[in-house]
């Protein structure tokens, strides 16, 4: 039955098709050039990224090194939960963090139904949208993005890209090396809904808190400038 | 800016403007056409009014009767082509000629439609951009505050927004009190208002209420279709705001009763 649907559909489409060769099709597609992207609010990628995360109703922090990063995670947890419970994927980069310094020891695995907080190490951060990019897999089960009340995400400064087109260049590079992940997730804010009377409410199904910690070298004023940009 | 044309003998002459009166002005509001002639002459044009004109064909066209519209469109094109310019005191009829005739017609007629479209203007655009209307020498009596209804076809097909406001300011010395949601349709839509009267009435009521809320005493605009609809709805709602075509305001012709007003 479905086979016949397939051949019927293809027959009908071929009838309306130009019948061009793959090379001609590719050439035409390439001739369209790059799509216009949104301008960054400021030339510095790190500042622009942080500003857009804030505009997405995320909270941000910066860390110069891994010790600062775990400390920032601990602080956020304590601030919201007075607890140090945390789940994180089996990410070798997360495993190698100096957790003892912050008094936090994540459970490495998959988030369950009612987890207070989950931690991800993003592959990329996209300044244009203020989004972090994660791949599903052992290092970051998709449930970790979705089931916890709070989602904390670490991003390296050197993994920031300007726009979505740059993001795909980087993703292609990783996919060519490691194969296609099951899922590629761009996350840009806490879960939200406006389905009742158009009123925006956070924590619809997924995390109600979304905290991004940018790790590495960035301008000293990045955080302050980002806050000013997001407020203005 | 208008260019003086050379006639075959090489003498420069005033440009001739054919006035396309529109069927609604012809039938319901001749004062709009007379005001238009006055304004065009004041702007230095030699105005002709082709007497064979009737309607641009929108009623049939918008109802999807392309077959009945096509010969009418050709007739209008043939009648108007000889003039240097065609001026229409209506955004929707001008839009019909400029946008929809070329879409409707094919081949040679499409070419002729396109050519005519390059020389066809809605009245306020023509007076603002092509043949600038000089300031009136006669001091017009101070007008009460007005608000302007942007007709959809004029606004979106012909980009008419600033032109009438500029003329009202510069020629009549009045500012327009802007209403909320100026870019939303008044619910006229040609046959729409009779086919779907309740929906149309809701849209017209919203428009009337927005106009009244500005405190303006006159609601003006460039399209009689919308204005007849709004005047009719305003009267039904018991609102006393006057409804007048912008050509009448610009020419200072306020002696005639407003649309839908008694003698």
């Amino acid at each position, binding site marked *: 039955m479905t086979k016949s649907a397939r051949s019927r559909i293809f027959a009908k489409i071929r009838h309306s098709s130009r019948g061009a060769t793959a090379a001609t099709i590719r050439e035409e597609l390439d001739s369209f050039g790059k799509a216009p992207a949104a301008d960054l609010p400021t030339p510095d990628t790190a500042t622009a990224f942080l500003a857009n995360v804030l505009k997405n109703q995320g909270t941000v922090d910066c860390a110069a090194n891994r010790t600062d990063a775990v400390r920032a995670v601990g602080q956020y947890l304590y601030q919201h939960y007075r607890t140090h419970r945390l789940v994180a994927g089996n990410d070798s980069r997360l495993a190698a963090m100096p957790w003892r310094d912050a008094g936090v020891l994540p459970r490495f695995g998959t988030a369950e139904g009612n987890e207070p907080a989950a931690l991800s190490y993003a592959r990329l951060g996209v300044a244009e949208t203020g989004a972090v990019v994660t791949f599903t897999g052992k290092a970051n089960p998709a449930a970790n993005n979705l089931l916890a009340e709070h989602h904390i995400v670490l991003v390296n400064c050197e993994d920031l890209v300007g726009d979505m087109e740059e993001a795909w260049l980087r993703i292609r590079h990783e996919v060519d090396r490691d194969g296609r992940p099951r899922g590629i997730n761009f996350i840009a804010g806490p879960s939200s809904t406006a389905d*009742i009377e158009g009123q925006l409410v956070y924590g619809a199904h997924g995390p109600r808190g979304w905290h991004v910690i940018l790790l590495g070298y960035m301008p000293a004023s990045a955080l302050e400038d980002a806050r000013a940009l997001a407020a203005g | 800016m208008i260019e003086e044309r050379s006639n075959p003998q090489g003498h420069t002459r005033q440009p001739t403007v054919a006035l396309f009166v529109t069927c609604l002005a*012809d039938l319901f509001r001749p004062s709009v056409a007379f005001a238009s002639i006055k304004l065009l002459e004041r702007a230095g044009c030699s105005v002709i009014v082709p007497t064979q004109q009737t309607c641009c064909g929108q009623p049939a066209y918008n109802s999807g009767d392309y077959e009945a519209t096509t010969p009418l469109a050709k007739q209008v094109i043939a009648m108007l082509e000889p003039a240097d310019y065609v001026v229409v005191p209506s955004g929707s009829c001008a839009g019909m000629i400029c946008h929809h005739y070329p879409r409707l017609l094919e081949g040679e007629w499409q070419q002729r439609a396109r050519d005519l479209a390059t020389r066809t203007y809605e009245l306020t655009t023509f007076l603002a951009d092509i043949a600038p209307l000089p300031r009136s020498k006669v001091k017009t009596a101070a007008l009460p505050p007005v608000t302007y209804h942007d007709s959809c076809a004029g606004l979106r097909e012909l980009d008419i927004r600033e032109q009438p406001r500029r003329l009202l300011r510069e020629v009549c010395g009045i500012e327009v009190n802007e209403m909320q949601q100026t870019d939303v349709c008044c619910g006229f839509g040609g046959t729409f208002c009779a086919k779907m009267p309740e929906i149309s*009435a809701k849209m017209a009521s919203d428009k009337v209420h927005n106009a009244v809320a500005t405190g303006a005493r006159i609601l003006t605009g460039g399209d009689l279709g919308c204005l007849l609809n709004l005047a009719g709805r305003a009267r039904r709602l018991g609102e006393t705001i006057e409804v007048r075509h912008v050509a009448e305001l610009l020419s200072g012709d306020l002696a005639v009763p407003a649309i839908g007003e008694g003698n």
Partner: protein
Amino acid sequence: MEMHSQAFLENAREALGDPEKTRRRGLLAAFTPMVRNAAMESFGKFEPLRQHLRRVRQHTLDNLDHYLDRFEQEALSNGNHVHFAMDGEEMNRIVLEICQRHSARRIAKGKSMVTEETGLSRHLQGAGLNVTETDLGEYIIQQAGEPPSHIVGPALHKSAAEVRDLFLARHDLGERELEETSQLVQEARGVLRQRFLEADVGIIGANALVAENGYSMLVTNEGNGDLCANLPPVLIVCTTLERILPRAEDATAMMRLLVRSATGQPHTCYTSFYSGPRREQDTDGPIETHFVLLDDKRTDILASDYREMLQCIRCGACLNHCPIYAAAGGHAYGAVYMGPMGSVLTPLLTSLEESHLLPNACTSCGRCAEVCPSGIPLPDLLRDLRQAEQAAKLSPPRWRTGLKLHAWLARHPRLYHGLTALGIPLLHRLGRRRGSFSKLPLAGGWTSQRDFPAPQRKTFMQAYAGVLKAEKKRRRHD
């Protein structure tokens, strides 16, 4: 609540009869364009991006056989099952078979207009499956037993108070406070969380299918689609052929306009690409994944003059900007798709006979085409459908004959001017005192709602002939 397109006028009248709902529709109609415009203004590249995307989508539709074939190959090599369905019935059957093969009982469903189109949930429930709509808006209307009133915000016609009453009636959770919207959301979150965790099968739609790598793109703010896509052991993606785009970049470029057009956000919270079942080293994700690709007249539309309609990305901007949609409300259309895009699609997907009124629900105001991120000339397509209505003799004969007669008369100026020179002065005399008529024979459509302004003394042509004559006389005297 079953509504029909044939009853559009009655439905609209009924909707306008509820002042509170009409007021709320008006507020949304003022608010949604405002946020969309603000978003586009700060983006600043609406027109160039719209042109770019139009070229890409046009190119994709021109070469759809190539891209569909490519997508299928990539999706298969990603480990998916790929099914094709000619019509909604076939899609529903395929999905049910998959569910039954897995002995599934509980289905968690993401928001998908395609499955609204095929009536998938009803079909599965009819076979005894327990289907939960997980998008909050969809969940609300599922509980209320209503169809969506908007393609993006399906429950926007409901007030918070109505949602509260609904939840109190449908959720057996004892006494509790539900005054705030946030409390309502919180309650739905709790109820639905359990459904996600228990589901045997997840069903989602797709905002795009990427031909080069066989991924599907899903965008949500709630994250419900992602929960459906990741937690249950079986995932079924239901979508239509025209969602295909060549490259991943094209999908995210489209997002720039889609989200700004839909909600005024620069992007959604979750933009997710899914390729297939879990990989060998993965610890979560579905074990089996299916694509069901539906035609349902898309190939007919592709071959027709309405091809541009296949560029629609379902953002809902045309609904938000349509004053007729605002007045009548989404339910009045009696169709899955409503507003301008719906009035084009419904006749193409169902039949002109049952929905020919919808293309008439348009004043050609052009606001929809102005904001359409795909640049679809919606008023032109609606007018073309009215032509089809005319040709099929579906419009009222009185109107058809009247308009034909008017056009014929307009081609005979002497007769036209002669007749109007008789009628207009008469009408003037009858109406001059009051200035307008509150009732007029043959103009009932007009005068039912508004007065009919009386004409000035004569027709212009009559008066002008007089002016010309007087001028001639004067010249002769000079």
